[in-house]
Every structure is written in structure tokens, then in C-alpha cells.
């Protein structure tokens, strides 16, 4: 091929990639191409165009695209590829086989794919691999341990265990519920006007709406006047940060006062009666 023909072919491929929504930038000795924003409709056929660039592609981002295992053979031609994003695609273990000869790969992102331990076995000869991302995949401890053994320098990131987080949050809620709270006095409307709030210390109040309808919660300002804070549904318990000496007014949804209470310095609780 003459230089002119080579340049023409290159320009045609770049144009095709651009029309598929790929963003191309210079990167190192070649280019980086990203389809993750405007190129998410990219499919296996479109991937063939990327494959045509062969050694020029150093970074390729296919996150959220429509590629499948059928498109992966095109990636085998990208022999200089260093960073590959396949997260949140339909690629499976079979597709990873086509990466096994990409010896320059340092970064591989597979989070949110259905790959498993079988797929990891295709990566064991990628000696330059530094980081692999596996959150939300079907890999197991055993599969990861085997990969780690083949590539001791590799950082395998399996992400957070959402169940562990859920358990921690649930324990925090239990702890908060177990806090001993003093019962506040409920002052029904019709008598004394709720006093203005005074400044105090940081504390909390747990407000249980025993009524069959929602209510509104207002804070009485230091200078008088109401400030809307929340709606509390029937049967709901609202845990509210407050300062001690704060006056809280409860009204109907139509803002007719029902009663008020004043916070104390200790964590407190109040029931809005029927």
C-alpha cells in the first residue's frame, strides 16, 4: 500500500468510528477510543472497524455498549492494547479467550459482566496486567486465588460486598433504636401558644405519629414564626436531629395546630396522639 492509500484507509476507518459514536484522541504512540457515552449502540459489526486499526489502539472503552462474544475476535488484532473497558457488556467467559494474546494489557475492567472463574483462566499469561476489576461478576474466591497465583503482581479488585454494607446499616439502625430516650410532654393546641425556640445542644428526637392521617412538623423560630420541616405519615416514626430547647409544632396537613413539644438535652421521644 502506498502512503497515500494508507492515509486514505486510516481516514476512512476514523470516519466510520466517529459515525458510530466513538471519540478518538491521540494516546501514547497511537489512539484511545471511547464508545461509552455517544457510542453505546456499538455492536459486533461496528467493532470490526475498531479492529481494522490494529496496532494503533492503545486504550479502548466499550462500557455499556451492545457488543457480545461474537465481536471479541476483532479485539485479538489490537496487539498494542494497554487498557480495555468491557464493564457492563454482555461479554462472557468465551469472549475473554480472545484477550489471551494481548500481552501489553495493563488494565482490564470487567465489572458488571457475567464472567466467572472459567474466564479468568484466559488471563493467566498477561504478564503486564496490573489491575483487573471484577465487582458484580460470578467469580469465586477460588478462581481469584488461582489467577493471583499466576500473576502475583496483579491487583484484583472485587469491589464491595453489598450484603456486608446492608448488615452494617441494619446494625446501625438497631443501635439508634436502642438509644434510651426520655418521653417528652405533649402540649395540645388550644391553650398556651408554643414558645419560641432557644439555642441549645445537638441532640435528637424520635417522633411517632399515632394518628390515622399525616401531619406536618414545624420548628418555631428563635424570633417566632413557623418553619416547615417535614411531613410525617400515619404510623410513621421520624428520627429528627434537633437542638435542645427547640420547640416543635405539629399541625394537620391543612396546617391547623394539633399540639407542640420542646426538646431536651437528652435524646427524646414523643408520640403524637390520636
Amino acid at each position, binding site marked *: 500500500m502506498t502512503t497515500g492509500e494508507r492515509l486514505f484507509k486510516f481516514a476512512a476507518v*476514523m*470516519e466510520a*468510528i*466517529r459515525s458510530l459514536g*466513538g*471519540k*478518538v*484522541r*491521540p*494516546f*501514547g*504512540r497511537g489512539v484511545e477510543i471511547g464508545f*461509552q*457515552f*455517544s457510542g*453505546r449502540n456499538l455492536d459486533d459489526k461496528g467493532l470490526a472497524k475498531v479492529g481494522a486499526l490494529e496496532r494503533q489502539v*492503545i*486504550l479502548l472503552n466499550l462500557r455499556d455498549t451492545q457488543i457480545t462474544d461474537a465481536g471479541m475476535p476483532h479485539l485479538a488484532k489490537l496487539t498494542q492494547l*494497554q*487498557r480495555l*473497558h468491557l*464493564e457492563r457488556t454482555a461479554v462472557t467467559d468465551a469472549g475473554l479467550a480472545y484477550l489471551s494474546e494481548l500481552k501489553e494489557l495493563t*488494565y482490564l*475492567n470487567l*465489572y458488571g459482566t457475567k464472567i466467572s472463574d472459567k474466564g479468568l483462566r484466559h488471563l493467566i499469561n498477561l504478564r503486564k496486567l496490573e*489491575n483487573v*476489576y471484577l*465487582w458484580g461478576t460470578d467469580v469465586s474466591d477460588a478462581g481469584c486465588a488461582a489467577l493471583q497465583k499466576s500473576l502475583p503482581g496483579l491487583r484484583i*479488585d*472485587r*469491589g*464491595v460486598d*453489598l*450484603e456486608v*454494607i*446492608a448488615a452494617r*446499616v441494619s446494625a446501625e439502625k438497631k443501635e439508634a433504636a436502642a438509644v434510651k430516650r426520655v418521653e417528652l410532654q405533649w402540649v395540645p393546641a388550644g391553650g398556651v401558644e408554643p414558645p419560641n425556640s432557644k439555642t441549645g*445542644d*445537638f441532640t435528637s428526637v424520635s417522633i411517632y405519629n399515632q394518628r390515622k392521617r399525616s401531619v406536618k412538623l414545624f420548628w418555631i423560630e428563635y424570633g417566632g*414564626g413557623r*418553619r*416547615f*420541616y*417535614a*411531613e410525617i405519615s400515619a404510623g410513621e416514626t421520624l428520627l*429528627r*436531629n434537633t437542638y435542645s430547647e427547640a420547640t416543635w409544632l405539629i399541625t394537620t396537613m391543612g396546617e391547623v395546630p394539633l399540639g407542640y413539644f420542646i426538646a431536651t438535652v437528652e435524646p427524646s421521644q414523643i408520640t403524637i396522639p390520636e
Partner: protein
Amino acid sequence: MLNLQHSRRAFLRSSAGLAGLSVPTFFSMQAQAATGSRVRAKSCIVVYTWGGMSHLESFDPKPHGPVATRGEFGAISTATPGMQFCEHLPLLARHSEKLAVVRSVHHNQGGHQQGMYISLTGRAPEGKIRAKSRTSWPSMPAMISRFQDPMAGTPGAVRLPYSMYDNGKLMAGEYGGWLGEKYDPVLMRTPAGKPFAGVSRYTDPVLNLKLNLKETRMRDRRSLLERLDRNLNEARPGVTALNQFDHFQKMAADMLLGSPVRAAYQLENEDPRLRAMYGDHIGGQSLLLARRLVEAGVPVVQAVCSAGDLAGGGGDNWDTHRGHFPKMKNRLLPLFDRSVSALLTDLEMRGMLDETLVVLLTDFGRTPKINKNGGRDHHPAVYSVAFAGGGIRGGQVYGASDESGTEPAELACSPADLHATVYKALGIDHHAELHDREGRPFRICDGEPLPLI
């Protein structure tokens, strides 16, 4: 008012450039390409602890400093030998290998407006500054967006969850300034918690009585919004009037509805366990939204990391002139610790940290001297900021303050130097020259990058 048609055309024009590059981006890329194949940060999340976060109770504790000033808290070791944080940042301590902490930042602007202005724009305010003035300096997020090339239908910069006000006055420094209206970051409410959906009573012009002279006017506006609510809920379920108040004014409808950004905005689509990891408060949910927006293609997001709860409760900001220690211990530090740690964990496990620069900024630090109300006052003479991701080398401390945390002891640097560091990480030439609409040239930054990369 932004001419929405014009900006849409401009967006389409800008994505139709040379193989997807706009001209300024292409030339700045030329400068970067020569430096090899280090992957470049493509997005930036600015976490802003508004009000002035005490350096002594965060990244620069002085457990052996003078008794009168070192405060009530101790220091803890982090995952990095020799680097200690305040004892109330245990989760961030585990992330220290990702963080570059700068302990020697300083400026001379003591008020909130001036401190916030210099922190976000890199420039000392000149004369009287007004928020939406077109002669004021653009914020760093606005400037970044000038050099990025997001896909059509995506805002160039987003700020959330509300505008910063001080004592009823809208503050300057977080807008597009002389770059023009097109580069004003788009305001988005964090859609978490009902019925406020991320509105802060302290700052919102509809709900804050200080900003709205008559209570009746506020009542009228609320009932108007309630009526609007009903109409809009029919048109677009789940989006309330309160949370579209500002951003529909600024964005073409098709821009907001451009599907990756819109999908990112729907926080209910996120796994509730992941939402819980960030924390059940406006700061946490704002950082979660920031990650989602970056993943959807927004190049820069500025999130005020405030400690307000989801019902728009007070206690939002870090300006602890009174009762500093209980506020930091019970409210501010735990929320900051949890939500920033969640953001770093989340970015890392998605493999996004290399390409996303996270910057923790604040107005200024707080005085070593503790006042008679048990508080610390404004202190720009030295304070701390931190960077993570985007190619920044973690596990390092740059610069130091003196033994009481009063002034820099070594490697003093300015907010402009921090900005130069951000621009460098993003592949933007910090000496680039731009022109305002009158054709006057401005060099985008007067600082020099710190050697953190």
C-alpha cells in the same frame, strides 16, 4: 436567559469536529500526547466543604502541639506510615494510599465570600463582586468545562445540591464569569428525601425567609409550586417542582432528557445498599449523584459536601464559630468521612479512579485559637486540601504547617497552584490564554502545578 436553541447548535457543532475533537481540546491534547501514555484524568469531582473546614480537626491534626490550641481530639494513624488524620476520620484513614494531602495552602481572604471566591476561582476578588457578574472570574469547574467536549445533550459542568449563600446573599465564584453564561455550571438538586428533594432551607430562595422578604410571598410561592407540582407530575412523574426550579431554567429540555444524564439523575435506580454506603444525608447522596453524573459523561461536578439531613435541616456548613468540637464530632466529620470514603471506594471498584480526579476544597481553615464560645474562627493563613485519583500519587503529604497550625512551615502554596495541579492532571495547559467576549486575553491560571502527579 440562556438562548437554548443557540447552545444546542453550539453543542452539535462542537461534537462534529476532527474525529470528535473540538479545536481547543485537540491542541491541548497535542501538548499532552508528547508526554507518553500515562492515562489522563477525563473527569473531575470537586467536593466543597463550605464554611471553612478546620485543618486541625481533619487532615493536619496537632496531637503534640500547644495545649491551648490543639483541641479536644486526638490523631490516628492511617494506612500510610507517618501520615496521621484527626481521630474522627477513621474511614478516610484507610484510604490514605489514594490521597495526596496538601497541608500548606494559604491565602489572605478572611470572609466567606472572598474565601470561597479565591478557592473556586484561584483569584483574589477585585472590588465589589456580584454572583452572576460577567466580569468576575470563572470558577475552576466552569473553566474545566471550557476545555472538555461532552456529548451533545450533556452539561459541561454541574454543581449541586444548591447555590451558596452567606447571610441571605448569593455568593460569587461558582459561575462562568467572563467565560459567559454558556459556561455557568448547571445547578442540580440532589433528588433525595421528601418533600424537599435536596433543598437546603439555609440557601433556597423559595424556602428561606431571610431571602424572601415577606412570609406571605413565600406562602404564595409554595402554593404556586404545589400547583406546578401537580401539573408537572402529570408530565413527568417523580420530578417535583422544587427540584426542577433552577435547572430547567438553564438547560434545554432535551439536554436534561439526554438519556444517560437523566438516568444518572434518578437516584432511586441505585441499589439501596449502595445508597446507604454513602449515607442518609444530603452530602452523601450528592456525592453519589456526582459519581453517577461523571459515569454518564459530565466532565466536572462540584458537590457541596454539607451535613444537612435530607429534610433540608440546618447544620449544613462547616462554619463552626460556636460549639466547634461537638458539631465536628457528632455531625460534620462522620458525614464527611463516610461519604468521601464511599465515593473513593465506589470510583475505585468501578475502575474509574485513574480517570476521575477528586479534589477536596474548602474556603479556608480555622483558627488554632479557640474562642470563648468553644469555636474556631476563619483562618486562611494556612489550611489543608486533598486530592485523589486522576493520576495523583496517593499516600503522600505535600507541605506542612507550623507546630500550632497557624502558618505554612514549608512549601507554601496558593489556591491557584491547586488549580494548576487540577488542570495538569486533566491535560489542560494551565498557561492557556482565553478571550472574553470583548476579546480581552486572560491566562486561565496564575499558579504552578504541585508535583503530585
